[in-house]
């Protein structure tokens, strides 16, 4: 069975001067019909539209239709990509592998040239480092999974003998877009939780001279990760972000706002224990610790693993994994939200739910409590007053903040006006 066939050697990489077929050509050659491609783009359009497009894009911009996305995607050549995995668990890459779309394998192989990613790349050792160094030299998209440990002179995470910080700095130098993907890359996540033994920080603590788009979540939904990359390619610019640097197309709404269990919250129907009648009826999980009211994520809309389910759909409270320092701020996970130390919201589910049973009043009640604590931020850490939580300063996100170039007449916040205290 042994073959004497000599396979062709690898084509030399000539980074920056390659001539690649466009995605459209590639798809055509590989037999992907325009119709199938449009269906894929329709999914993307849905994801983008899920975010408030008025907030995400200037009002004058063309609406993001599947046709437009298909046209723009078809015209791009393959950008080089460096996809780093620093101090992390590979969950974000696994999530990326689960991203939906019927022909995503072909699309990804044709859409991007991922020259460096430790999980899937063929090369190892010196050959891998060479691919990284050469790609780093010229324009590329940088995707980062994982945090950067600053303790022990960087010895808590080394790659090719270099510290994670050095690897990140070298890859960021000529990157035209930087996406911090996953809670670790954004805020350090689990290893940055108290007492943060390795001194882990997120990407934008290290890279401060370039914009870093934060795709938060532990992990983020696969479709959100790939849509962030597709956004950059189709729009030629970074997506609009909220006060935490997260793209508004996936993070401008609280889970609570689009949760299918929301009517039960408004009606005061709460799960009291995981095996009660309320649990089987799909009632609201607020009372058993759900963090949905203060978590910004597209989970209820996009859902997980080809729209199979999502955490609340499977009966478990949201643990708030798209929020900053969620491990420290939102634990104990099963404690009712207002009682979580540091959030300081006085209302309880009982008061809100039973005291103000009405279409929006109950929702407004809890929003009011939260909104009173929010502060406007033009960009994170540039303004606003911090909240004392667990002995440290944290900010609650504020999606009503528009990017600086958004038209002044764009609605700032379409949710029910948050008056002063309306709780019962």
């Amino acid at each position: 069975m042994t073959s004497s066939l000599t396979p062709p050697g690898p084509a030399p990489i000539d980074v920056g001067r390659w001539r690649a077929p466009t995605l459209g050509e590639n798809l055509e050659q590989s037999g992907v019909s325009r119709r199938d491609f449009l269906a894929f783009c329709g999914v993307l359009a849905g994801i983008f539209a899920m975010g408030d497009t008025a907030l995400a894009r200037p009002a004058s911009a063309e609406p993001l239709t599947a046709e437009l996305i298909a046209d723009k995607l078809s015209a791009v050549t393959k950008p080089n990509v460096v996809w780093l995995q620093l101090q992390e668990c590979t969950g974000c890459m696994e999530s990326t592998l689960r991203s939906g779309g019927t022909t995503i394998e072909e699309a990804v192989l044709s859409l991007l040239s991922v020259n460096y990613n430790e999980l899937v790349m063929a090369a190892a050792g010196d050959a891998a480092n060479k691919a990284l160094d050469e790609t780093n030299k010229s324009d590329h998209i940088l995707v980062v999974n994982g945090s950067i440990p600053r303790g022990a002179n960087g010895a808590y995470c080394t790659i090719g003998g270099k510290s994670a910080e050095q690897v990140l700095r070298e890859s960021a130098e000529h990157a035209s877009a930087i996406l911090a993907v996953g809670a670790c890359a954004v805020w350090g996540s689990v290893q940055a939780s108290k007492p943060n033994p390795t001194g882990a920080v997120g990407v934008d603590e290290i890279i401060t001279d370039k914009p870093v788009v934060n795709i938060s979540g532990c992990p983020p939904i696969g479709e959100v990760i790939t849509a962030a990359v597709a956004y950059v390619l189709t729009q030629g610019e970074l997506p609009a972000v909220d006060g935490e640097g997260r793209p508004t197309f996936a993070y401008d709404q609280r889970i609570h706002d689009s949760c299918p269990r929301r009517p039960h919250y408004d009606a005061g129907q709460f799960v009291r224990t995981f095996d009660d009648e309320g649990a089987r009826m799909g009632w609201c999980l607020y009372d058993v610790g759900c963090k949905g009211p203060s978590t910004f994520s597209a989970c209820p809309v996009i859902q997980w693993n080809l729209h199979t389910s999502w955490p609340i759909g499977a009966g478990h409270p949201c643990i708030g994994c798209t929020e900053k320092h969620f491990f420290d701020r939102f634990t104990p996970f099963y404690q009712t939200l207002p009682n979580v130390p540091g959030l300081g919201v006085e209302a309880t589910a009982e008061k809100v739910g039973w005291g103000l049973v009405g279409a929006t009043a109950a929702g407004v009640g809890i929003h009011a409590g939260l909104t009173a604590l929010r502060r406007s931020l033009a960009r994170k850490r540039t303004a606003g007053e911090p909240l004392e939580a667990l002995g440290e300063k944290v900010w609650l996100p504020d999606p009503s903040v528009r990017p600086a170039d958004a038209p002044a007449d764009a609605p700032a916040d379409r949710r029910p006006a948050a008056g002063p205290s309306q709780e019962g």
Partner: protein
Amino acid sequence: MSTRVVIDPLTRIEGHLRIELETEGGAIRKAWSETTQFRGIETIVQDRDPRDAWAFVQRICGVCTSVHAIASVVAVENAIGANPPRQARLIRDIVLASQEVQDHVIHFYHLHALDWVNVPSAATADPAKAVEFARSIGSTWKGNTIERMTAVRDTVQQILDSGQLSIFTGGYWDHPDYRLPAEANLMAVAHYLDALEFQRSMIRIGTVFGGKNPHPNFLVGGMACTIDLDRSESINQVQLDQIADWVAETRDFVASCYLPDALAIMGVYKDYFDIGAAQPNYLAVGLAGATFGGDPGASRTTSAHTEVKPGVLLDGDLSTVHPFDPTKIAEYIASAWYTYQDGDDAGLAPAQGETTPQYTGPKPPFEWLADADKYTWCKAPRYDGKPVQVGPVARILLAYAQGHQRTCELVDDAAGKLGITVDQLNSTAGRTLARAVEAMISAEALAEVTFPQLVDNLKKGDIDVFDNSRWDPSTWPDKGEGFSFVEVARGNLSHWVTVEDGKVARYQAVVPTTWLAGGRDADGQQGPYEESLAGAGSHPLHDAAQPLEPLRTIHSFDPCMSCAVHVLDVEGAELQVVTS
């Protein structure tokens, strides 16, 4: 004259692994396994609500997602005396099985196959002959069509034409030891892409019960996902039908695609059944998915195959199954950047473990680590003082030694086809084959045992998936110690927890890759990775600049380095963070 070889990053694994070698005349003489990441999660979980611990420790790994969470909730349940209902246990078994098969499929096709399969060569293949080749090896996979093979061949050609090889950049494609004919390479690349598509489907079984993947949700005392066939908002017949479909697909994929591919490809590289042996000691508490809360010698288990008992095989003797004794496990730090209060040569049982990081290596960037006694973040676990192998090869050999019928059938069939003996499973090719055999057994157990049992119990009205009686911390003992053993994809996983005054007082995980990737112990015994490369002194390395052969051997263990590194802060002890 010896040559120094460094492989860092060792890619297509989870996490950060560096291998340093000294070679002479094309053979590896010395090897060092070096874990280059440390995160400290067990320290972080300390003083927290034990009901939250699963969410923290699950983040040990996003590849082995859910297995640490299940090990954690079982250990906590053991500590506080919670008793999850049988349906909840079955659901965890189903999640473990689907996760494990998916994990093995991803490992074989996406993390290991490129060591054996030459991607550029696929562009030169005749699609019709590739289909013929697939048929000749007994692959009945529905993707074996001329149209599909043609499309994949064209995709490979386009990538080559574009000059941008994407993830195939820098592969050792001109290495002389790629042996498959072009048609086999094309078939394997097609199956690589099919598996990428398929793993998404397979994982959805766990999503129904846990809400997402990676990192689904679990619950101390049972599961949060209610089941009630007569309710729209709980898991009902709609989801059961979907799961039945995915379970059937899973078995079909393994039987018609994965197992035949593994047999055929390992058959072409048959000399690798004589390469890469590690110490012939094996430990397992049962077949994949076997789960114990507390001592496996005494406590109850959940398993699709209760007839396979916990056991240890020593010194290559497959005729004697020694009873498994958890108290014989100890961890050593002679080669790891930690310090023990009683001296760094001591071995500590997990229940008394300490982890105080103390980095003594060179300041990054560095060229070489192996000159120092300490060179890794991974501890070295030993059983009764011996390095042992865990994982599919250990489980398959244990089940075989106990005469488990299906295991014996599949192993004997494969051994007959390949002309190897059972003890040759201790090898680079053997570990890869054992994983495929195990995936078959697990996929069958999912389809024939665990999922039908869940449905059958539902038919009898058993919808209880959560035990509320120990949810409230006031029902817990003032101090409780618990532990769990779970057989997960990469091998034997144990979590150890002490709950005091409603908080986690101590937490420790001993994970499969720690058993395998650890370095030398105080007696100078190498860890299994090191032994597999340097033990016999005959491991090939054709070209130091293209270390394809050691990659094959290390990948055969399916390394998971994030899992391998763990830290325990003993009660009251301050964690020492070295900052300069």
